[in-house]
């Protein structure tokens, strides 16, 4: 007898609906599992057989064939135990299939028949809607994640016997009670994010970060140890705009696929802040593995990727950032499958100016020129080219630290950034550009128009500083953001002068 149920397979951060079909027929007694399965899916046979016998169902002495189709897609992950078990039970004629045509199930099983949580429930739930499926059967622990999709009935199950009991009758009418439409306010998302008001002094850095966030420019912060580079970077999420609904879904999907979705009863609403340690591997940063998993750059999508002590990262690891920084996604190609993960983040990197950390304070720094040059060489030119802005911080004096006066709060800064973002939205309306930092080289002439005296100034500086075309374009893009923040239609002289403050790291 033939029986089939629907389940899903995770591909990148998206799920694809596949069907799990079983057939129990006369012949040599075997239990076959086919359909381009990876090792952990093949193991499912033993789990299913044991679990069934433990809840009192013994497999018939017949030829049992289970196929997960289409067979052209590689199946991996642990979520196939439940659909395999149910399809076999169905093929044995123990349950009816009326409602199962419009439902999708996934879950891992242990030998006792308990259902364990799995990764990628949110993408699976989202794929249900696209495929006209309105019921999803998920492990009890994943029910909140599944119920984030409006209009989807969620049936949480704790064990296989529970589910068999439920399926003997028509499915209950469970409504989407768990779904909470979370219209988050700016103040709500802040939560535990450190606020800019706690950063004393550091006017240049604060201004640079404001500009960087306004245009989503990547930024490199250089300064002595203990100057507050890391704290400042951690404050950045507090001045990022709240996420839009599609952004929330995208980021929640990524986290669900990576198996680290923790939000209780709502989509992720805080922008990610990822700060991988400098010992991170290539695959850890970019994503990878035999069944590609998202890396740090994907997990930072929609938020900030903070690379503390940039020169300490291995050079090879940093080089993988080159392509994602241009295209804002990463294509991972492996033998079994190739996936594209989003990688649309704002990069903040920090570094010391020299091995001892105190250059250019010659009273403290004893590094000689070759030492510094060697230290700087750890960063490749192409990577630095993709970092729009550079700024430096200085160590605070005791007086500045003691100063109890609070600085401008994140909210005030955010208000200004919001305006700049609106201006950009209007300017790029109808194009696929979102921010000034994303203006492609061929459009720079169109969007970054200089006023007459600014053009003269730019020409003068271009010659004096011997800028490359790319450096010049970077400055124009920063200039565009500064002009937006000063509400200038064209890039004025002063905007450009400020932009030159944040040009590439220079030292003589």
């Amino acid at each position, binding site marked *: 007898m033939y029986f089939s149920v629907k389940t899903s397979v995770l591909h990148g951060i998206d799920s694809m609906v596949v069907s799990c079909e079983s057939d129990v027929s006369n012949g040599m007694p075997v239990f076959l599992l086919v359909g381009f399965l990876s090792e952990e899916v093949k193991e499912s046979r033993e789990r299913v057989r044991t679990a069934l016998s433990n809840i009192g169902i013994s497999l018939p002495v017949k030829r049992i064939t289970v196929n997960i189709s289409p067979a052209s897609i590689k199946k991996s992950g642990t979520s196939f135990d439940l659909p395999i078990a149910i399809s076999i039970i169905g093929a044995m004629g123990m349950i009816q299939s009326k409602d199962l045509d419009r439902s999708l199930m996934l879950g891992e099983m242990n030998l006792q028949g308990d259902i364990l949580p799995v990764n990628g429930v949110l993408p699976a739930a989202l794929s249900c809607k696209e495929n006209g499926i309105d019921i999803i059967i998920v492990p009890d622990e994943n029910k909140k994640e599944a119920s984030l999709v409006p209009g989807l009935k969620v049936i949480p199950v704790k064990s296989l016997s529970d589910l068999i009991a439920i399926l003997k009758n028509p499915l209950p009418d469970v409504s989407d009670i768990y779904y909470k439409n979370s219209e988050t306010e700016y103040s709500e998302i802040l939560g535990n994010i450190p606020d800019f008001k706690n950063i004393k002094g*550091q006017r*240049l850095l604060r201004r640079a970060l404001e500009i960087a966030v306004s245009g989503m420019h990547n930024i490199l912060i250089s300064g002595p140890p203990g100057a507050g580079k890391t704290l400042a970077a951690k404050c950045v999420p507090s001045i990022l705009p709240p996420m839009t609904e599609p952004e929330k879904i995208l980021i929640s999907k990524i986290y669900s696929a990576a198996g680290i979705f923790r939000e209780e009863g709502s989509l992720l609403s805080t922008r990610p802040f990822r700060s991988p340690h400098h010992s991170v591997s290539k695959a850890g940063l970019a994503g990878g593995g035999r069944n590609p998993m998202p890396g740090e750059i994907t997990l930072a999508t929609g938020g900030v990727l903070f690379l503390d002590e940039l020169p300490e990262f291995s050079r090879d690891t940093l080089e993988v950032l080159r392509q994602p920084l241009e295209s804002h996604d990463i294509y991972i190609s492996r033998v079994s499958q190739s996936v594209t993960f989003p990688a649309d983040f704002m990069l903040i990197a920090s570094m010391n100016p020299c091995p001892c950390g105190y250059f*250019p304070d*010659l*009273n403290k720094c004893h590094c000689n020129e070759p030492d510094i040059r060697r230290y700087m060489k750890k960063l490749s030119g192409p990577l630095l080219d993709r970092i729009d802005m550079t700024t430096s911080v*200085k160590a605070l004096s005791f007086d500045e630290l003691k100063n109890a006066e609070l600085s401008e709060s994140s909210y005030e800064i955010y208000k200004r950034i919001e305006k700049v973002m609106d201006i950009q939205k209007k300017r790029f309306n109808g194009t696929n550009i979102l921010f000034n930092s994303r203006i492609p080289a061929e459009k720079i002439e169109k969007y970054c128009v200089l006023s007459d005296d600014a053009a003269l100034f730019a020409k003068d500086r271009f010659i004096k500083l011997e800028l490359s075309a790319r450096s010049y374009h970077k400055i124009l893009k920063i200039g565009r953001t500064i002009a937006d923040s000063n509400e200038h239609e064209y890039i004025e002289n*002063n905007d450009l*002068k400020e932009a030159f403050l944040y040009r590439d790291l220079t030292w003589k």
Partner: protein
Amino acid sequence: MILEKINSMNELKNNKTPYSLWLNSIVGVTVKEKKALMEYFDSAVKIYKANTTELERSLILSNDKIEIINKSRNEIPLVKPYNDMTKRGISYYDYKDSNYPIALKEIPDYPLGIFHYGKPIPNENICVAIVGSRRCTTYGSKAAEELAYILGKSGFTIVSGMARGIDSHAHCGAVKAGAFTVAVLGCGVDVCYPPESQKLYMDISKNGCIISEYPLGQSPLPKLFPQRNRIISGMSRHIIVTEARAKSGSLITADLALQYNRNVYAVPGRMYDTLSEGTNLLIENGANLITSPENMLKLISQNSFRNFEIMDELSHESIDELNDNESIVLKEIDYYSIHRDDIEKNSGFTGDNLTDILDSLTEKNRINEIYSGYYVRK
């Protein structure tokens, strides 16, 4: 083979240099003994031609060392090193050669000979050494360059070590003045160290010369540099230290200079500046205090019983006038780097105003952004 040897010997009849080179490259006989041999036999040629009896009669060498010398006549080729060297425009002068710097012979451990690349050293010029630390502030480098320029214009030869920092700036100043400048290296004269100074190396070899007591191809070793310093102080009548930490190679040079009865001058610094601790220490111990370029020339005139005066053309470069705001901001900027945030806090100017002022100060060549966001006075 023998014919060839005889031919080349004939060619060399009137040339002592290959023999001097041969003597210099013998390993196992000390410089002191080599010098004694030179004194006894009067020239390297005669040492080469001396037989065992003659060498024994000199009572300088032990039998082992005489054996070494006898062997070296066969082992060390005479002509090839000489030809290779001359092809590259490098010469070698032993201490009896007329091209050997006269002042250098005054020191007790003068080198047996020096390798020389570039123009011949004009003996009529007085050599002044300008030395200092490798890591330097704009204050030190500016002083080195300016003093070298002025001394160069007044007809002095500027001697230094071509190291990073002060040394390089001293050479630069001399090159700018079109003066003769001598770089004393701690490696072979054909080795450019530090490697990034390739251009300076070329400039020096065109405007002056590069000398070293070490054989060609000798790579720079840390132990060779203090040895090199004795040549710098030995060659020069006057030693100027512009910037040095309390423990610094430049102070060794200055100490040696005092032993050799040279005049030591130091450029003073402020008491908090670690890079001026060494120079201030020298002043405390009685070095001549340089308060201005004019004063330096006056001091050198006094000490050398001649009169040097600053030429009119270089007395004052034209300096752009500053407006009030620029003066206020410039007051906050020092020879040690200062961050923009501090300038903002101390001067009271902010944002675009400050950017403007800093820009125009940079334009007028009064300040320099040495690192993103950090400024120093020029």
